[in-house]
């Protein structure tokens, strides 16, 4: 073994990465070469000094808290934070509650993002397409009634979820009826509401876009789109009403949905 080989391998020796044969070779060489012996000794001393020093960092409590909160959030609600980190780096969780029209309680369970990824884009585009398609004559409703007790059972056997059907007539969102629609080649429940002359389609599906794992608040082709996940269901709301009114709608649905689901 020459000094060049030894110089590389003595680190492997220090790190316990050499097999017995090579370790013996390095040590034999160091026994006859004082330069290599000195290197071995001083690098080993440095290695040991580093092992003995407290060079590890401890994650600050607030970071640990943020990560734990993240991991307590179902995957379908997880949003890539990259876009949020700058410039509003410190306001990640706080930012949603303040930035959206949602109540604190709802905001805690919803994560609304303003930037979407390409896959999300696909779903969002499909949702908007479905909405536009529904506005064509005769396509809006399969079951036309303002009675939620008629709409909800109608979905039985047509989609694999029991969507919450919530009557918001008293709050100026009139229930028009329901429809079977397809998003991403999956059958979804579409519940149709109206505010003044504006139609709101609420698409409900089990894990629609779960593999896309994002939530959005966006405007596509002039339509406002809201997406959230709740109680194991994915919700998409689409309408041409202004964003703040759609936020209000989302808020009301999100609040009422837990009580509604299961009670058909």
């Amino acid at each position, binding site marked *: 073994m020459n000094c060049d080989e030894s110089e590389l391998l003595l680190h492997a020796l220090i790190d316990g990465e050499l097999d017995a044969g090579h370790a013996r070779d390095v040590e034999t060489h160091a026994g006859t070469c004082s330069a290599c012996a*000195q290197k071995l*000794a001083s690098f080993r001393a440095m290695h040991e*000094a580093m092992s003995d020093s407290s*060079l*590890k960092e401890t*994650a600050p409590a607030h*970071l640990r808290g943020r990560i734990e909160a*993240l991991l307590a959030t179902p995957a379908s609600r997880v949003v890539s934070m990259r876009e949020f*980190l700058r410039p509003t780096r410190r306001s990640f969780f706080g930012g949603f509650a303040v930035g959206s029209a949602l109540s604190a309680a709802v905001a805690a369970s919803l994560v609304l993002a303003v930037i979407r990824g390409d896959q999300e884009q696909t779903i969002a585009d499909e949702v908007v397409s479905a909405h536009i398609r529904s506005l064509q004559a005769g396509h809006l409703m399969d079951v036309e009634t303002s009675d939620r007790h008629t709409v909800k059972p109608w979905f039985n056997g047509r989609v694999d979820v029991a969507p919450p059907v919530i009557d918001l007539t008293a709050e100026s969102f009139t229930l028009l009826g329901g429809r079977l629609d397809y998003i991403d080649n999956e059958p979804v429940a579409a519940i149709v509401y109206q505010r003044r002359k504006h139609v709101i389609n609420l698409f409900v599906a089990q894990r629609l876009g779960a593999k896309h*794992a994002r939530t959005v608040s966006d405007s596509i082709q002039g339509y406002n789109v809201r997406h959230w996940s709740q109680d194991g269901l994915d919700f998409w709301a689409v309408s041409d009403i202004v964003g703040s009114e759609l936020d209000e709608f989302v808020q009301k649905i999100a609040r009422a949905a837990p009580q509604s689901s299961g009670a058909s």
Partner: protein
Amino acid sequence: MRRFRDAALPHLDEVYTLARYLMRNTDDAEDAVQECYLRALRHFDSYRGPAMKPWLLAILRNVCNAEFTRRARGEIPTDYAQDESVTEEMPMWQEPQASPEKVILRQQDSATIRRLVTELPAPFREAIVLREINDLSYQEIAEVAGVPVGTVMSRLARARAMLRSAWNAAEASTAEPGSATASGITL
């Protein structure tokens, strides 16, 4: 979700440690760790092992590099780009060619060692941190850094040579003769 939590959360300090050394400030490190866990969560379905720690560290490294690439494109000015450009030459870190090998390695406190490590050029800093602080094997370092084991070995050798020079230089410039910190380890 719980499975991911149980597997990934115990490595938070390790991930944060690497982030601190790669990003070199706490704010950027925290952002990187957060993004790392998000990406890990989203790709956990496709995770097939072998070990969670190097997998997380590899993701973290990618997050950090993506951030540096973004900055290098001019979005945020940083001195890191310069740092990267000199990594293969590093005249200021060369071993003194003619001088005899030092046989004494001075004792340094943890804060000094951290500073010296932090000042190493990126690929060498990464290698030494993964080895000495994150305690990864050569094979694991190779996986994290995406280079062959041979490259890991040469980077580590280089990193230690640079670190030792800086180490002894730090001793020479800061230690009072005769003081406790200059007592040294005689070999």
